[in-house]
Structure formats: C-alpha cells, structure tokens
C-alpha cells in the first residue's frame, strides 16, 4: 500500500511541476517575443500606405514611416512627394498632436479628402482612415511593433 501512496504523491507533484514547465515554456517565448519587439527601431508613430497613385510617384504599395509632422505635396521639399497633376506644391500636412492624428489642408487647389469627405481646415484621423490628395489615395496605419 505504501508504494501506491508514494507513487500517487509522485504523480501529483509531477503534474504540478509539468503545469509550471508549461508556463515556463510560454513565458520564455513571450519574453523572446517582447525583446525582439523592443530591439526594433520603433520610433515611428504610424505608417502611410499608398493605395492608388496613377503616376507611380509615390509607388503603389509603398509605406512611409511617419514622424509627428509630415508634409505632403508636389514640391520636392515635402516629406512625401506626391507627383500628381491634381496635387498642389504644398498640399496638406499630417500631424500627430497629443493622442490623435490630424490632416490640415494648406489651401490646396483641389482639396484634400478624408474617407471621401472634403477637409475644411483641420480634420481628425484614426488609424485605418483613407486620405486622398488629387488622384493619390493613402491609408493611415498603425506602426509595426
């Protein structure tokens, strides 16, 4: 009988140990994953993905890392050069203030659109929203982390 009791004790302890072995395995994976995420240069606040661009400048599918202030327009001094015949030289500026994104139209000739609505002055943006300058359409996405 003693042998049975002893083996039951061993099985119980082994079971509890295995539960913690599983947790240890998971935590190891989680830590590796978090460290890998921390190593990446993660300074970008968001990304701007090009959805449509008839002239190919910027190229469709390109993704721009965003800082707090990003200017858009035909002029080469803009952060993102939008070479489209319906875009103005200094067309719009995308800013990250506090906790939210804003698109400000800089008095462009043909206007800027957020989700198809003409921007008058400043419009707030969320991740997943679409902007349109001239024929170029872009989508604001969260930074890759």
């Amino acid at each position: 009988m003693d042998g049975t009791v002893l083996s039951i004790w061993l099985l119980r302890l082994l079971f509890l140990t295995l539960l913690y072995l599983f947790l240890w395995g998971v935590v190891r994976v989680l830590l590796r994953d978090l460290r890998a995420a921390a190593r990446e240069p993660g300074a970008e606040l968001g990304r701007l993905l090009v959805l449509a661009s008839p002239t190919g400048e910027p190229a469709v599918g390109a993704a721009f890392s965003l800082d707090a202030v990003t200017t858009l327009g035909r002029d080469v001094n803009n952060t993102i050069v939008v070479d489209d015949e319906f875009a103005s030289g200094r067309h719009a500026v995308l800013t990250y203030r506090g906790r939210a994104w804003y698109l400000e139209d800089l008095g462009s000739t043909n206007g800027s659109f957020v989700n198809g609505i003409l921007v008058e002055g400043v419009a707030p943006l969320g991740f997943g929203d679409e902007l349109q300058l001239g024929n170029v359409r872009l989508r604001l996405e969260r930074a890759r982390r």
Partner: protein
Amino acid sequence: MTGVGRRRLHPRPRRRELTLLAIAGLALVVGSASLEATRRLDPTGSSAGGPEAGFPPGGLLAVYLAGLALAHVALVLAGRRTDQILLPTVGLLGGLSLLLMERLPQDLAGGLGLGRTQLVWLLGSIGLIAGIGAFARGDAWLRLYKYSWAAFGVGLLLLTFVFGREVNGQRLTLAIGPLSGQPSELLKVILVVFLAGYLSENRALLVEQSTRLGPLRLPPLPYLAPMVALWAIALSIVVVQRDLGAALLFFAVFLLLLYVVTARASFVVLGLLAFAAGGAVLYEFVPHVRTRVDIWVDPFAASRAAGYQVVQALHAFARGGILGTGLGAGLPEVGGLPPGGIPALHTDFPFAALGEELGLIGVLAILGLYLVVIERGLRIAASAADDFRAILAAGLSLVIGVQAFIIAAGNLKLIPLTGITLPFISYGGSSLLTNGLVVGLLIALSDRGAEPPPPPQAARGRFRRIFDAVAP
C-alpha cells in the same frame, strides 16, 4: 503539393505550438494517471462518478488530445503566421476541465453524463478555434455591420427577458426548439465587436473634444448617449435577469476599452461613480443583489442556508492548502449535498474544486494561464494594423480575463459571488463555444498579412458636422 480549390496549400510549421502542446499533453496524461491511481486506491470513496462501463480510463482525455492535435494540423495546413501560444494555453485549461468533470458525479448532466458532454463541447470549442484561426481572413463582416450586430444582441437580450427560462432564480437560458443556450455569453462578444466599431470610428473625437463639468472633463455630450445606454443595459440585466456576473463583466469591459482607446482616467472615474451609484440603488431595492452582498460580507451568518456555497468553497480552499489533496481526492460531491459538497460546483465553483485538489500552487498556475491569454491578446492588439482590430483584440482578451477574475474572486470571497462561468473550465456548452469563438478570432487577428481592412465609410454624417461646427 495539392491544390485545394483555387488556393494552394502552403503548410507552415508551428514548432512553438507543437512543443507547448506536447508539454500540455504530457501534463494532462500525468494528471489523468494521478486521478486513476487515486480512484483505485479508494474505489468506494469520494470519486462518486467512477469510470463508466465500456470506456477505458483516460479514454475521454485521449479523444480530447487527438482533437487538439487535429486543430494544430489544421492551423499548420492553413500556413498563416498566426499566434502559436493561445491554442496550447487554452488546450491545457480545457484539459483540466475535462479531468475535473470526469471525476464529478456523472448524473449532473443528463444523457451522456458530465464528462462526455463536456468533451463534446470542448471539441466543438477547439474546432471553432481551429476553423476561425485557419479560415477567417477579412474582418469586414464584423466591421461593417456593427449596428446590425448590436441590434441582434439587444434582440437576443429582449427575447431572453420575455421568453427566458428561469433556472435557479436567474432568467438566463433561452430555448428555441431543441436549441437552448445562454445568450449573455454570446452577447459579450457582440458587445466587444460593437464597441470596437464604435470607438475606432469616433476615437479622434472622443480623445480631443470634451465638455467641462467642474473638475471633470466629460466626453462630448452626443457621445455620452451610447455610454448611458450601456449602463442602462447592464442595470436591466441585473434587475430582469438577476445576472450580476454578466452585468459586471459588460460594464468592466466597456470601461476598460474606453480607457484603452482614450487613455483618460476621468472616464474611468466617471464610470466607477456611476457604477457605485447604480450598485447602491440596486442594493436598496433589489433583494437578489442585497442577498449576494450580505453573503459576501458575512457568509457564516447563514452558513447552512444562503451562505452555504461560499462557506463550503472557503473550506475547500482551506483543505487544499499549498499542494492540494490531489486529483480525485477532494470532496466535491454535489447531488446529495453531503457535508463538504458545493452545490452547482461544475458551473460556478470549478475554481474552488481545483483549489482543493491542486492547492495554492495549482490555482496560481491556472491564474497564470489566464494571464498568458490576456498578454497574448494585448500583444496582438499592440501590433494590429488599424484601430478596429486593435480594440477588438484588446476587448476579446479582456473579456476572458475579466470573466475569469470575476468568478475566481467570487469563489475566493474577494468580491460578491456571481453565477458566471470560468472560461474553458466551467461545464456548459454556451460558455465553451463562445470562448472558442473569442480565441479563434484572436488567432485570426494576429495575422498581419491578412486581408487589408475595407475602405472606411464616408458616412460619419451628423457627428462629423457637429465636430466641424465646433472645430476652430
């Protein structure tokens, strides 16, 4: 490689998932062996269920492990870069549930018996996880129809109010023909989907605009309406359904998501104040709530009547101590209420039973497993491509975490007891299937290479115009 339809199969190995599944499987096999050995030692004693005739000991577990392996194969064949932690973690929780249900009196569930019925539901849950994790690519079906989903949820709730069957004084179960289930389980998923849609669309406005009221900065007034509506729904669930747990869960998840989206403590303070006010009123006027709170304050005042469950649960934890009594050696008889048994153990008190049999060490490991689910969910949220997916992932994982906390803390007399299920461990089909749905969605959401989100809709109409009028 063979083509399936037009899409070719591109299997992608999931080594981490396989390793973790192997450890989980080994742990469960050892647990099952320990259960069997304890039963043989004392065949007349506490394990009233006993192995059923014609079914070898551990047979249920073998079927369950085969189900997990199949789910793994399905995810490998799908070839997506998705999360590899959630399936083993949830699988281990489900396995623990199976071990527990196998050793309880089998007559708690009619027909197949407790263990087998639970196995069927667990397999369904795993199937949902694998199916959604492998096939759900786009999220437009959730994103675009949030108001339809919300209407469906409210409709379900109203149906339960009117046609619900009362079980143990709670009107939770809705039966349509042969199907019956607890809509509040599904409702929590619908709530998260709706909140994700609503908050992601109005995030910029909620963060920036505010109405000042003394020292408090309230959200803009038009946006208070849905919040008040949710508060009212939570209250009505308490009053009409007498379901404190679901109400607490909905409200907590709502506040947490609001904080996740806006990072404003004032919203949370406001919500807590509303909660305190609602709680005080309910305590005064709803006898059901008053009983629950009184039991919580002093269960020993009526230890043979209303406080019986809670007192017995406390005794169970005390008997368990640090290492526990061992699987199969606890005293959780339910049917005839012998001294030491806890009524409704398989649905409301599995945490106390596990606390007795696995002890403090085992219970801490189980809480650790829930923490892992939350951590994975929040990581998936942090790396999601857009707001909707981020809020959805955060909300889904918080639903599981908050629900586990509410019932575990209730079992431990940390908060008043509510009749809510412990995710993946409690007995019950509605609960297991919905939680399978939740984890399946989380796995699908973790795939960053998935279909891009659909173009946002322009129709923000009225609210946008209000904002334009206010904006400088």
